[in-house]
């Protein structure tokens, strides 16, 4: 009999209590830094949601952020300081008290500082407190500091900052509201995740065209109007072919080029001379242009010049000079950039390249966006409206992670600038505190004489070199830094080269170190090239039995693969248990319409004996007596730890880590005296501060008087001079001139040809180095990784919910390529590079470049790590491509081996990898290779539950009491 509905009591509690308390803070499930509201109920996290008022995510939250409960709840959390008792790598530890741990660390570090501070290599991984960590390194006195940028995105940062004084993602964003045509190159789906998703939704609803250039069609690319499955590493050639088409047709914004770029600046043509290729300058050092009205050279920075863009001019001293634009036009009009010439190499048909060029020109020049907003330019000229060319671009890791990435990034910016689409309505927009001069100060500290016992360095360890004299090299040209950043190996290594540290320290090249101190960097696993080799280096010993890398200190909140390779473990808290700061001095949360920064506040108390890494660093600094961290009487300057530092530390008078609510009553923003109530004001304002720009400041920021005045008043830039976009990069030419034998600082002979080749002042394209090293017949395939939107590097793997989405990665293979090798769905294959071999399981795919295989990054785990069961799919079927990637390029004729990196910036060239594929034999077991011994659990780890019933206690919760 049917149950008659009316006989049943169908009471549903539709208004249950959700929270006792809601706390605002900032997410750290990836690097996106979204605002979150954490609903606490009965002392537990009931729910985490996006903060609607927050500038980054505007209320939305991604899969990672929504899984924060499980990050807090993870059984892989470390619980107490650990000291290694067995062999390094065996994972045998004893628990020790914090005082002892800090005494041990301080003892090691004190000895180093008193003798040779370089022997501390301090490298932080996915750190969001580089304003503290970099400064701490300077106070300690070691130049050997960097975070993870060198193996992540320095090509994008440097390519952008040296060209337009800003960059993709961190320091700029597409004008989602106004663009008509959007091109996205090689973007990892876990970068800038929510802003990009919000933006794509917005622009697709508006009917703008979205073109994705990426060898792999997943997430974002899947919703593109057009997907171009380009051959990996050829994006620069594609971009320069578009430039070729646009130039040939006269579809460039000459007015924009004259007003805002160095296109009219005169370049000296003096073959063999010391200044060949440098800018012609007047007596005050100002660049010259040729004024068509005066028919004479004039200071190109004057507002009323009428510069020539073509011609060959004779200067007063008799030398010849040519405008940048003419050099540029001559180069890119060359037939080698014709679409017919680049089609095969890029894998994009010539007709498609021509059509895309026509579509770009159409959007830029036939679909102008006009905002009725009057504005004033840097020279005081009023403009009645803002007119924009609505073409926007975004690019990230697929460009960055190649050995030609720096120049490719410059090529993309060149394309944008020629279209007049930088910081205009509909174009690519700067986020404050950018634009800055291209490049900005400061330069890296650590030059000869700047490093010595018991003294701080005079500046930050990382910065922007502007010529050979800024390099960190010894008199003989050898590197000063352990990672060889800012040496002739990688002169513009603005983020350092973390990927080289372990190998160099192991080899003692350029010198041995004493202590390697790392934070949140999984360098024995997915953050290293040549992971197995790296493990060997970490455990290798001298004949006397001592480790080649004598001491390793590591801080992490979780039992990552790296923990087993450290001698001393300083356990960190989770992101919900600590104070943090997303500072304007570091990588802030600004958007194109406003400057902003934010904090994290502890929303839950740790139930373990752990301390926030930043507190530990400040404590260590005080124990060591570092100048910025102690008072004159030797007492700790910030006894309250990181929150004390956040409020009271001043980088220079009035400028501290947080820009909001400074000064006596919290009435000053940007600069002002420390305000003891500052953190309370942040908490009252949902843990962020934002200063919205006025409408007349929002575009043309590089040349907008009201914006530049504001930026100078806030301390973003030193003065309100306009930022001139550098199509032709003179710093590059200076390095090249040194390679040609000019100037006091010249490369050693072995580096000369390389520097001369790759320091071209205009963007060039060359094949990724691995293409040159390998024979297409031996290694016919490219192999790359992608980042899933629902996982962030290693840190998601112990998350009970996220690992149900990405628990074991597959090797995605183009269906046609698989068929040629008789490989079917779920078959096991060997993937073989010149460096190594791995075994993986296949999934067939259509939406992938025909000569490319790929997998999700960092899903494969070592058995035993992260407190996962030994038979977890991450360990048994998951795998890393890292084992195939050599950390060094093959030997040169002279026996030298460069890092597997971009020759300009030192950016790790992950995606250069070439491989071949072979079907595994039927009797080979269905397990990924290589496998490693399972790591034992350290003391103090929580027991893994076999059943998770999170939230059961919240069931049947009545309405609010």
């Amino acid at each position, binding site marked *: 009999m049917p*149950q008659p509905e009316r006989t049943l009591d169908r009471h*549903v509690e539709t208004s249950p209590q959700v929270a006792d308390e809601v706390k605002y803070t900032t997410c750290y499930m990836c690097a996106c830094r979204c605002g979150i509201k954490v609903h606490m109920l009965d002392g537990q996290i009931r729910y985490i949601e996006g903060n609607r008022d927050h500038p980054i995510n505007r209320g939305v939250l991604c899969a990672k952020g929504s899984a924060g409960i499980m990050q807090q709840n993870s059984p892989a959390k470390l619980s107490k300081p650990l000291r290694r008792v067995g062999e390094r790598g065996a994972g045998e530890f004893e628990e020790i008290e914090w005082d002892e741990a800090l005494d041990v660390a301080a003892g090691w570090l004190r000895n180093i500082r008193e003798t040779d501070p370089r022997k501390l290599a301090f490298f932080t991984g996915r750190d969001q407190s580089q304003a503290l960590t970099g400064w701490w390194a300077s106070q300690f006195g070691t130049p050997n500091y960097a975070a993870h940028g060198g193996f992540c995105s320095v090509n994008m940062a440097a390519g952008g900052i040296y060209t337009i004084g800003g960059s993709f993602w961190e320091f700029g964003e597409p004008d989602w509201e106004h663009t008509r045509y959007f091109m996205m190159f090689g973007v990892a789906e876990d970068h800038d995740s929510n802003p990009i998703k919000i933006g*794509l939704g917005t622009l697709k609803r508006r009917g703008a*065209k979205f073109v994705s250039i990426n060898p792999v069609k997943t997430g974002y690319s899947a919703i593109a109007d*057009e997907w171009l499955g380009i051959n990996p590493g050829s994006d620069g050639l594609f971009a320069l072919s578009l430039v070729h*088409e646009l130039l040939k047709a006269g579809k460039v914004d000459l007015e924009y080029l004259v007003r805002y770029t160095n296109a009219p600046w005169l370049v000296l043509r003096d073959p063999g001379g010391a200044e060949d290729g440098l800018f012609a300058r007047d007596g005050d050092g100002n660049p010259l242009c040729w004024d068509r009205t005066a028919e004479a050279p004039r200071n190109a920075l004057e507002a009323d010049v009428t510069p020539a863009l073509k011609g060959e001019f004779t200067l007063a001293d008799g030398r010849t000079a040519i405008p940048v634009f003419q050099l540029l036009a001559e180069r890119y009009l060359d037939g080698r950039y014709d679409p017919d010439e680049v089609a095969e190499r890029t894998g994009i048909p010539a007709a498609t390249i021509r059509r895309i060029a026509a579509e770009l020109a159409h959007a830029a020049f036939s679909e102008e966006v006009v905002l009725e907003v009057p504005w004033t330019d840097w020279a005081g000229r009023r403009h009645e409206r803002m007119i924009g060319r609505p073409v926007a671009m975004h690019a990230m890791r697929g460009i960055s992670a190649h050995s030609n990435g720096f120049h490719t990034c410059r090529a993309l910016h060149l394309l944008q600038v020629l279209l007049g689409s930088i910081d205009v309505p509909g174009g690519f927009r700067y986020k404050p505190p950018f634009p800055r001069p291209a490049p900005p100060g400061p330069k890296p500290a650590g030059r000869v004489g700047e490093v010595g016992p018991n003294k701080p360095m005079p500046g930050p360890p990382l910065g922007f070199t502007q010529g050979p004299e800024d390099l960190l090299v010894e008199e003989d040209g050898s590197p000063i830094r352990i990672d060889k950043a800012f040496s002739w190996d990688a002169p513009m290594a603005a983020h350092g080269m973390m990927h080289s540290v372990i190998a160099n320290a192991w080899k003692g090249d350029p010198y041995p170190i004493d202590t390697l101190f790392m934070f949140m960097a999984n360098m024995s696993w997915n953050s290293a090239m040549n992971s197995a080799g790296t493990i060997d280096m970490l455990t290798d010993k001298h004949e006397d039995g001592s480790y080649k890398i004598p001491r390793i200190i590591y801080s992490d909140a979780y039992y990552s693969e790296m923990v087993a390779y450290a001698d001393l473990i300083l356990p960190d808290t989770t992101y919900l248990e600590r104070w943090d700061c997303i500072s304007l001095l570091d990588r802030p949360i600004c958007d194109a319409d406003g400057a902003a920064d934010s904090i994290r506040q502890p929303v839950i108390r740790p139930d373990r004996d752990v301390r926030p890494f930043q507190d530990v660093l400040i404590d260590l600094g005080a124990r060591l007596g570092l100048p910025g961290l102690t008072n004159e009487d030797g007492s700790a300057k910030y006894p309250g730890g990181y929150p004390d530092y956040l409020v009271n530390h001043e980088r220079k008078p009035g400028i501290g880590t947080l820009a909001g609510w400074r000064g006596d009553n919290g009435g000053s923003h940007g600069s002002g005296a420390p305000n003891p109530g500052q953190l309370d004001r942040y908490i009252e304002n949902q843990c962020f501060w934002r200063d919205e720009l006025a409408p007349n400041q929002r575009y043309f920021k590089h040349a907008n008087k009201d914006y530049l005045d504001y930026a100078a008043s806030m301390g973003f830039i030193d003065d309100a001079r306009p930022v001139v976009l550098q199509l032709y990069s003179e710093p590059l030419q200076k390095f090249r001139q040194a390679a040609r034998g000019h100037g006091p600082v010249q490369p050693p002979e072995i580096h000369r040809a390389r520097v001369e080749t790759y320091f071209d002042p205009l963007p060039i394209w060359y094949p990724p180095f691995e293409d040159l090293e390998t024979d297409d017949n031996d290694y016919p395939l490219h192999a790359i990784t992608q980042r899933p939107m629902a996982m962030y590097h290693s840190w998601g793997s112990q998350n009970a919910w996220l690992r149900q989405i990405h628990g074991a990665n597959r090797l995605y293979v183009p269906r046609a390529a698989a068929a040629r090798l008789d490989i079917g769905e779920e078959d096991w294959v060997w993937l073989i590079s010149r460096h190594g071999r791995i075994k993986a399981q296949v999934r067939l795919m259509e939406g992938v470049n025909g000569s490319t295989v790929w997998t999700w990054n960092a899903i494969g785990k070592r058995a035993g790590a992260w407190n*996962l069961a030994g038979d977890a799919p991450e360990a048994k079927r998951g795998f890393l491509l890292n084992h195939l990637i050599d950390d060094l390029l093959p030997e040169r004729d002279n026996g030298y081996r460069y890092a597997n990196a971009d020759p300009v910036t030192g950016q790790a060239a992950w995606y250069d990898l070439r491989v071949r594929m072979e079907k595994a034999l039927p009797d080979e077991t269905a397990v990924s290779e290589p496998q490693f011994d399972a790591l034992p659990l350290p003391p103090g780890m929580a027991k893994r539950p076999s059943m998770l019933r999170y939230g059961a206690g919240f069931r049947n919760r009545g309405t609010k009491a």
Partner: protein
Amino acid sequence: MTSLPESPGAKRLGLVIDLDICVGCHACAVNCKEWNTGGYPAPLTDENPYGSGTSGVWLNRIHAYESGEGANSRTVHFPKSCLHCETPACVTVCPTGASYKRAEDGIVLVDEDLCIGCKLCSWACPYGAREYDHDAGVMKKCTLCIDRIYNENLEEVDRVPACVATCPVSARHFGDLGDPDSDVSRMVADRGGYDLMPEQGYQPTNKYLPPRPRRTEAGDTGAAAALTPVAEAGGFLGWVDRMLSR
């Protein structure tokens, strides 16, 4: 067997999901999980959460499909949860009255106190939208966040299903599909929103919006197939001269 409401109301709450912009990010699935593991169907159990064979209860799952070949192939991300059918077989098949459809808003719910875990409903549902909790021995499913959409402890703006509130691309919309003038009904009308497997006859309330046509041909954006080189004397640089001396 369980009866459907004798006099169903006009109100039909449901979701409209835009397949044109869904990037398959799983935000909706995980946010659904975290809301509901502490909500009406709490907990959404995870079996063997840190080992092999992990199996959790999810009320919303994302599937990805490819169709076609090579460069013209299409990748579709397809989020799927209970569609809150007008004539749901999962209800009529239920032997205990646990599975039921509400007259006042059309939401299909499971009353766990009456559920005996027989799984007939999951066999009956043609969409595979039900989730059996082995640990609790009862069936669980999308409630349309019934403990959010009417929750007076939440601000009014938050009274939408968790998956809708969190969706980063705004591909998910919530409203009354029984009201032809509602935003969601208009969206369905404008975009050609469709029912999943209408031939089954269960009249799902949730609708999907199809991908918009892609624009990959010359003329699709108003641009020509290729640019025309400048014809001036002196070629491009001659043109530059002329342009600058205007």
